[in-house]
């Protein structure tokens, strides 16, 4: 049987390798959307906070797996939440895409009514205000729930480690630690994608933002479809 130190190393290297393969393909559109919406500002702080939120969610899921010692028991209970996260992620990207180029009357409408208007106006105002770096932590917490094959696979291994834990606390801590390390391993790939999409290196960005907005809306629709069908 592998020691816990060896497991940490395996989880980190697994996170690192799937980060550059799977995560860039599946979650890359999200971080690219965030970067485009930031328009070159606070890339590392915002994405650092997003990743911190995501890792915290992974750790909590890992802890639960460690206590339960069963992947299927926990995953069955969070399936609805994951579907909701997928749909919310899609909606978030669509709103950011619309807000970025001020398509429709959205931008002006929100600026005029955002702080004092109705629930709808306030909701859109908050969603369009995700340029604030602090908004990225709760977004990371929520989107850490996104259904993802490699995360599931890591959670299976975490549940396996939980079976061997002498008590529930040890199971929780080891599960949380392993998933946190796995999440840390995925960070370099996502930060790289975020930085490349930050467009700080471009002098003329107007056209890129317009194209980016259309792509964001399409990606958002794709996420919503996946969420509905999940």
């Amino acid at each position, binding site marked *: 049987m592998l020691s816990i130190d060896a497991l940490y190393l*395996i989880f980190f290297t*697994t996170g690192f*390798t*799937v980060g550059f*393969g*799977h995560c860039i393909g*599946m979650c890359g559109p999200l971080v690219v959307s965030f970067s485009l919406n930031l328009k070159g500002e606070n890339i590392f702080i915002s994405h650092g906070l997003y990743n911190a939120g995501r890792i915290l969610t992974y750790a909590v899921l890992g802890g639960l797996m460690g206590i339960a010692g*069963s*992947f*299927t028991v926990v*995953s*069955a209970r969070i*399936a609805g939440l994951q579907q909701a996260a*997928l749909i919310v992620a899609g*909606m978030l990207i669509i709103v950011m895409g619309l807000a970025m180029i001020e398509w*429709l*009357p*959205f931008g002006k*409408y929100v600026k005029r*009514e955002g702080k004092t208007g*109705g629930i*709808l*106006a306030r909701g*859109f105002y908050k969603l369009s205000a995700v340029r604030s770096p602090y908004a990225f932590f709760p977004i990371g917490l929520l989107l850490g729930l*996104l*259904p*993802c*094959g*490699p995360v*599931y*696979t*890591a959670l*299976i*291994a975490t549940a396996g480690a939980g079976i061997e834990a002498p008590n529930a606390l040890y199971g929780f801590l080891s599960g949380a630690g392993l998933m946190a390390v796995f999440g840390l391993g995925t960070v370099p790939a996502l930060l790289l994608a975020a930085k490349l999409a930050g467009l700080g290196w471009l002098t003329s960005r107007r056209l890129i933002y317009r194209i980016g907005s259309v792509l964001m809306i399409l990606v958002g*629709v*794709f996420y*919503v*479809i*996946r969420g*509905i*069908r*999940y």
Partner: protein
Amino acid sequence: MDPIKTDRALRNRTVIPRIFYFFLPVLMLLLLPRMFPPGVGIPAAGAAEIMTDCSIHAGSCSRRLPGIEITLDIAPKPVRAMRDLLFRISLAGEAPDRTPYIDLGMPAMKMGPNRVILKKTSRNVYEGKGVIVRCPSGRRTWQATVTIPGRGKADFVFDVVY
């Protein structure tokens, strides 16, 4: 300028977007599932080239390695993702020195290591529990690679039910 007309115009500018934003998600929720019905899916890169070679829902599948035949069975059937599954390997021929194991993965996508540890239950029969996870991309084709230490590996490619 007529103050009544101005007031009406301002009210319209406030109400119309509200109606639009209310109906946009509702329309999306109603129309999109019709545009992409379940089972049709959005084709994934490389998906067309991946062929299954094992009807695991119908029964067990066999492969030959030099001097040994490997039969894989998975229960319960149909084989569903995100469920506890029992993997059974039956060997015919020369018995291996060490216990076989199964690695689960997708042929077209790196999913991280997912190994089923097997235990010997009777002569040349090994069993272990595992889970095949659900890929949010909608791809259903999975691969079980059975490793017989010192003898070789055999791949079984099959579809799972989501």
